[in-house]
C-alpha cells in the first residue's frame, strides 16, 4: 500500500469523523453547549470583576479541554468500539496508531473550536478582553490538548464500556476541579491541596492558558509547565496506545497495570520535580498577600547598600518643583495614567506593574530612567493611601517572585525585552527606595 493512499484514507477518515460529530446532537451538546454553560456559570460569579472573567479564563478553558478530552474522546471511542465500528476499521491495511491519531486530531479540533467559542462569547457577553497573546494561546492549547487527549486515550483503553468512561473520567476530572487548581483557584486552596495540585496536569494547564490572557510576558518563563504537560501526555498517550482495544469484550490484562503505573509515574515525576525545584511554594491570593504583611515586617526592612539616586542603578530624579515638571516627564506621567496594566484589579499587582515600569526603564538605560523612577513614585503616592502602599511595597520586597513581572512596555516606549529575574530584582530596589522615603528612613 502506498503512502499516498494511506494519507488519503486518513484525511478522509479525519474529515468524515468531523462531519459525523456535527451530525450528532449528543456530541454537539457535550462539545459546545456544556462549555457555554460553564462560561455562563463562571460569568454569573465573576462578571463584576474588572475586567470581567479575565483572571478566570485559564480555568474556564482548562475545564472545557479537560471535559472534551477526558469525557468526549473516550466516550466516542468506546461507544464506537462497543458497536463494532473499530472492528471494521481493523480490517484496513493501516497501522493502529494512524487511525487513533486521526481520531485525536478530530477531538483536538472539536475542543479547540469550543475554546474559541468560549473566548468569543466571553468577549460578547461580558466584555472579557481577548488574550493578550493570541498567537501564544494556540501554543498553550497545543500543550494542554496534548496532555489531556493522552489521558483521554488511556481512559478509552481502560474502560470496558461507556459507563466505565464516566467513572474513570470523574476520577480525573473531580480531583483536578476541586483540589487541582482548575475549578477552585490555587490561592483559595489550603497549602496541602496546592502541593497535591503540583502533581496534577490541571495546575500546569491553567498556568499556561492564563498566562496568555494576563501575563505581559505570555509563555516566557512557563517552560516547566510545558514540560510537565508533555511528560504527562506522552506517558498517558503511550500507555493508551499500547493498551488500545479494537473491540469490546476483551478484559484488562496484567500489562494494563504496568502501563497504568507508567502513566501515573509521570504525574509523580512532575510533582516531585516541582517540589524539589521550589515550584510548589504556597500561592497566596494577591489581595490577601500584601494584607498579611505586619507592621513589624515593615519595620524590619533595611536600607543598607541601596545605590544612590544618581548612580548607575535605580536612578531617580529629585522631587519635581510645583508646576515645574519637565515636559518629557509630564508626557510620561500622562501616558502612565492611561496605561491599562497599572489598573489591575488587585492593588498588589497594580503596584508591582508600576514598579516594573521603573525597573524596565532603568535596566534598559532609557534616557528618561531617572524621571520615570520619580514619576512612578509620585503616581503611587497619588493613587494609594500611605499605609496600604507601605504594605504592598513590603510585600514586593519580601516576595519578589510573587505575582507577575513585566519585562517590556512598548505602549510606554520601553520596548527592550529584558530578563524577568533582573526586572524583579531591580523592582525590589525601587520598592525599598520608595518605602524608605514613605517611612522617612531615606532622604527625599
Amino acid at each position: 500500500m502506498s503512502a499516498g493512499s494511506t494519507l488519503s484514507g486518513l484525511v478522509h477518515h479525519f474529515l468524515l469523523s468531523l462531519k459525523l460529530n456535527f451530525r450528532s446532537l449528543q456530541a454537539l451538546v457535550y462539545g459546545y453547549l456544556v462549555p457555554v454553560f460553564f462560561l455562563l456559570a463562571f460569568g454569573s460569579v465573576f462578571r463584576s470583576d474588572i475586567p470581567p472573567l479575565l483572571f478566570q479564563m485559564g480555568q474556564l478553558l482548562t475545564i472545557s479541554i479537560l471535559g472534551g478530552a477526558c469525557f468526549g474522546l473516550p466516550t466516542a471511542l468506546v461507544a464506537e468500539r462497543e458497536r463494532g465500528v473499530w472492528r471494521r476499521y481493523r480490517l484496513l491495511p493501516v497501522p493502529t496508531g494512524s487511525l487513533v491519531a486521526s481520531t485525536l486530531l478530530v477531538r483536538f479540533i472539536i475542543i479547540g473550536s469550543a475554546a474559541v467559542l468560549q473566548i468569543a462569547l466571553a468577549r460578547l457577553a461580558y466584555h472579557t478582553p481577548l488574550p493578550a497573546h493570541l498567537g501564544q494561546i494556540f501554543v498553550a492549547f497545543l500543550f494542554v490538548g496534548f496532555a489531556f487527549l493522552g489521558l483521554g486515550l488511556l481512559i478509552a483503553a481502560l474502560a470496558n464500556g461507556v459507563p466505565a468512561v464516566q467513572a474513570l473520567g470523574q476520577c480525573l476530572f473531580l480531583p483536578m476541579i476541586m483540589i487541582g487548581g482548575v475549578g477552585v483557584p490555587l490561592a483559595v486552596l489550603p497549602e496541602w491541596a496546592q502541593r497535591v495540585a503540583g502533581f496534577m496536569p490541571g495546575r500546569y494547564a491553567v498556568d499556561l492558558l492564563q498566562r496568555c490572557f494576563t501575563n505581559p510576558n505570555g509563555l516566557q518563563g512557563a517552560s516547566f509547565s510545558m514540560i510537565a504537560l508533555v511528560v504527562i501526555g506522552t506517558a498517558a498517550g503511550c500507555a493508551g496506545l499500547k493498551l488500545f482495544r479494537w473491540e469490546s469484550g476483551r478484559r484488562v490484562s496484567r500489562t494494563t497495570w504496568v502501563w497504568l503505573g507508567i502513566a501515573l509515574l509521570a504525574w509523580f515525576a512532575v510533582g516531585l520535580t516541582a517540589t524539589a525545584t521550589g515550584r510548589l511554594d504556597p500561592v497566596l491570593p494577591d489581595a490577601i498577600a500584601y494584607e498579611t504583611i505586619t507592621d513589624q515586617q515593615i519595620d524590619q526592612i533595611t536600607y543598607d547598600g541601596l545605590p544612590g539616586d544618581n548612580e548607575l542603578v535605580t536612578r531617580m530624579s529629585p522631587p519635581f518643583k510645583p508646576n515645574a515638571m519637565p515636559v518629557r516627564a509630564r508626557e510620561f506621567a500622562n501616558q502612565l495614567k492611561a496605561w491599562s496594566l497599572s489598573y489591575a484589579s488587585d492593588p498588589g499587582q497594580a503596584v508591582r506593574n508600576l514598579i516594573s515600569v521603573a525597573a524596565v526603564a532603568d535596566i534598559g538605560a532609557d534616557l528618561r530612567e531617572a524621571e520615570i523612577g520619580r514619576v512612578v513614585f509620585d503616581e503611587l503616592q497619588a493613587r494609594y493611601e500611605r499605609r496600604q502602599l507601605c504594605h504592598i511595597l513590603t510585600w514586593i520586597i519580601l516576595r519578589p517572585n510573587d505575582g507577575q513581572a513585566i519585562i517590556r512596555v512598548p505602549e510606554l516606549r520601553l520596548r527592550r525585552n529584558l530578563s524577568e529575574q533582573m526586572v524583579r530584582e531591580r523592582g525590589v530596589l525601587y520598592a525599598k527606595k520608595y518605602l524608605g522615603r514613605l517611612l522617612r528612613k531615606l532622604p527625599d
Partner: protein
Amino acid sequence: MQPPPSLAHVSVANLAKNYGPIAAVRNVSFELAPGEIFGLLGQNGAGKTTTIECLLGLQHPDAGQITINGINVLTEPMRARQRVGAQLQSAALQDKITPLEALQLFASFYAKPADTAQLLGQFELTGKARAPFASLSGGQKQRLFLALALVNDPKILILDEPTAGLDPQARRELHGIIANFKTAGRTILLCTHNLDEASTLCDRIGILHQGRLIANATPTELIARARTSPRVAFCTTRPLDAASIASLPGVTSHAPHSGGWQVNTTDVNRTISGLTRILEATGNEMLDLHILRPTLEDVFIELTGQAWAEDSAENKA
C-alpha cells in the same frame, strides 16, 4: 480432491491458537483453490472466528503458517490484508454515516479502489446511498458490509456469518450475491453455521469442532460418507400397528412421525414395496410418502457427536 498447493490462493497449515488455557484452534490445515467457495462449518465456539482472524492477521497464532497468494500473513499482515476483502461478524458502522460515505471512506485507504457508485448499484443500495446507516434494514446493512468487503476489488473474500440474523428473503438475496462472487472468479472462505447455506453455496466444506478440523470434503463426498441410513416417512388413512412396521423388509428402526411412521431402512425399494403390499392387503391407503436421504446435518451431527463423545470420555478419564 485437494488442489496442488502451488495453485492455492489461501493455505493454512497446522494453525493453533490458545487463549490462556483454552485451545481455540488446534492444528487446523486447509487450502482454498482459485475460484472455489470453501465453507467453514461449526457451532458457536468451534474456532471459526479465531481461524478467520488469524487469516486476516488480526490474531497472531501460537503455531502454524498462513499464506495468501504466496504472502506470509504472519510476517506481512498489512500486505496480505490489501489482497483480501472481509466481512466480519458483529462489525458495525456509525449510526449517522451513509452507505456512500462509508464506501468512499474505506475505498480511500486503497491504491486501486473499486468504483463506489458501481458497488452501490451492484448491491441495490443506490436508493439508500445517502440514508443514515441506522435507518437501513438488516439485509441492507449486510449488503453494505459485503460491498465494503469489495472496495479494494479483492480476489479473495472472507465472509463470517454473512446471513446471520436475516429473514429468509434477505438470506436468499445474499446467497445470490455470494454465488455471483464465485461467478466473477473470486475465491471465498465462507464461515457459517447454516447447513443449508453451506450445502447450497460451497464447493468444499470443512467442519470445525472444538478447534479441530474434523472433515474437509465436497458436500456430496461428506454425505456419501454418512453412516446414517435413508429414512422413509409415510402417513396412511388408517393407522398401522408397530408390529407391521417392524416386519417391513430392510427396516432397522421405526418411530411415530406426524400421525404416521418414520422408518430407517437399509433398502428403500424393498421397504416401500413391503409397505404397499400391506396396504393393499388391508385395504388401507397411502396419504403421504417421503424418502429422506442423509443430509449435511446428519453428517454434522454424526461427526461432531462422535468427537464430543470422545472428548467427554477423555475429560472423564
